[in-house]
């Protein structure tokens, strides 16, 4: 691909992200027979009830790996466009094939340096295998939390 085409592609991608659009997620990979996400910075998903868009801005380690991982998230309420504060978010790591989580079992993020971002971790992915990052977001008012699941294959 020429430099000019690369530049134009980058421009279009940047514009799409700046306008709040989401890029097509990279294809899933297999992990012990189950589907896992391919990690890229900016990986975005909509919560299971459709209320929120959750974007994984960054991961340290990248891609997520065995050991301590710290994630930076942004969560937007789709109806209002409001960015959700860290205290509305809870993150639970989980190994679905093993039926257990990590220690501690749940994490509440803190505000990140980037505007409207939330940082959560370190989360210990202590075994090789499929790890889910279950992001629970509680809307304002007396409404139930909605879940968004990122799944990563940890080689370890």
């Amino acid at each position, binding site marked *: 691909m020429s430099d000019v085409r690369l530049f134009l592609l980058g421009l279009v991608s940047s514009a799409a992200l700046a306008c709040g659009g989401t890029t097509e997620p990279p294809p899933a990979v297999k992990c012990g027979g189950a589907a896992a996400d391919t990690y890229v910075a900016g990986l975005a998903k909509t919560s299971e009830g459709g209320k929120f868009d959750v974007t994984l801005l960054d991961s340290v380690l990248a891609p997520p790996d065995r050991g301590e991982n710290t994630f930076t998230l942004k969560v937007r309420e789709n109806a209002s466009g409001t960015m959700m504060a860290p205290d509305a978010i809870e993150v639970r790591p989980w190994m679905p094939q093993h039926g257990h989580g990590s220690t501690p079992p749940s994490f509440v993020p803190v505000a990140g340096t980037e505007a409207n971002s939330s940082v959560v971790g370190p989360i210990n992915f*202590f075994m090789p295998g499929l790890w889910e990052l279950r992001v629970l977001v509680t809307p304002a008012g007396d409404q139930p939390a909605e879940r968004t699941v990122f799944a990563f294959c940890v080689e370890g």
Partner: protein
Amino acid sequence: MSKVSLLLVFLAGCTDAALTREERLDPQSCAGCHPTTVREWSGSMHAYSSVDPVFRAMNARGQREAQLGSFCVKCHAPVALAEGATTDGTNLDQVPAHLQGITCVFCHEIDAVTGTHDAALTRANDGVMRGGIADPFETPAHESQYSPLHDRKTLESSQICGSCHDIVTPRGVALERGFEEWKGSLYSSPSSIERVSCQGCHMPSKDGRVADVEGAPVRRLKSHAFPAVDQALTPFPEIEAQAALIEQELATVLQASLCVYPFANGSTVAITLENIAAGHHFPSGASHDRRAWLELVATIGDRTVFSSGVDGPSAPDTWLFRDHVTKDDGTEALMFWDVAHVEPSILPAPATRDPLDPRFAATHRTRTFSIPKPTPEVIRARIRLQPIASEVLDSLVASGDLDPAIAARMPIHDLRSTVMEWRAADGKFCAGER
């Protein structure tokens, strides 16, 4: 080896000449091209295995009391034994440093496993370094060969670990059974999505170059620190890093809960434990020497109203996990060669995820404690682990085989995932409940 000389070896760089047999025997020859790996290994219990003063004390006493011969050194100092530098380990003080421990050449020259315990393996002694990389990078230093026994992705690779980590004593008692425990777990089943080899957990990998050689590709570089439970008690390389890795390893082994249920005359405290990540039972290995126990303290203000396990694992009614071992006459055995009977009291590794399978219940252990009224304000609990029990160490000190100052350094670990606090004021049944 002193820190300065170790540093000089690490700085020596990678050789472009074939290593001689003598050089291959010396781990520091490997450090030129594999500095990260040798540095990790240098702090491991594999490097410490024949230097460990507790091992030396037990071996010295075992030679006197049970004429153990090469029983211990065939795993603890296999290269020294093969090279004729020792026959029974009683002269390990005089054995050169490069033959101490389980060295690079020992593991990487293994070409076959012939049994399930007591060092049942063969070392080719042919200068070919075997590893888990399917297409090894060619080097003039040594020949390289792929070996499924060294490939952490194969379940077969567990055999190489199991051959030394399972011990059947000279009198035929299956004393250390970590490999056997893994074989009975979900992790060893080829059809299980949870399958993972010993190396899969104990040798975590990350992207890196296996050798510091120009052109060497980036691979998954396996850690050679082998953290588990035991650690160096005397000055040794990487001692702080090793201790930190052990704490991290132990931090996630168990899943625990602490719940408090009020009743008419007081409250019932329920502690539930599940072995979620050991891959074998917990504790494992020298389970007859290890002590893991629950410490529980209930308070009102500054006053302790109930406690269990605060005086250590030997106190009556303590919830204790270990192998209870006895002699022929039924009395407790402290030295392994005296053991005639083993009664396990440990947390098994998961063998099933089916809650209706009787084996499922065995992996979830609950103990309840009744506390009379008034209800405590705070209840704290934790699982503690002593790698080698005080009574075993005390016995070795009493027989003159172990320095009491070294015995005093044996750590007690608190398993991070089991450190729990329940507060009545939170209004919840269980600690950590949201």
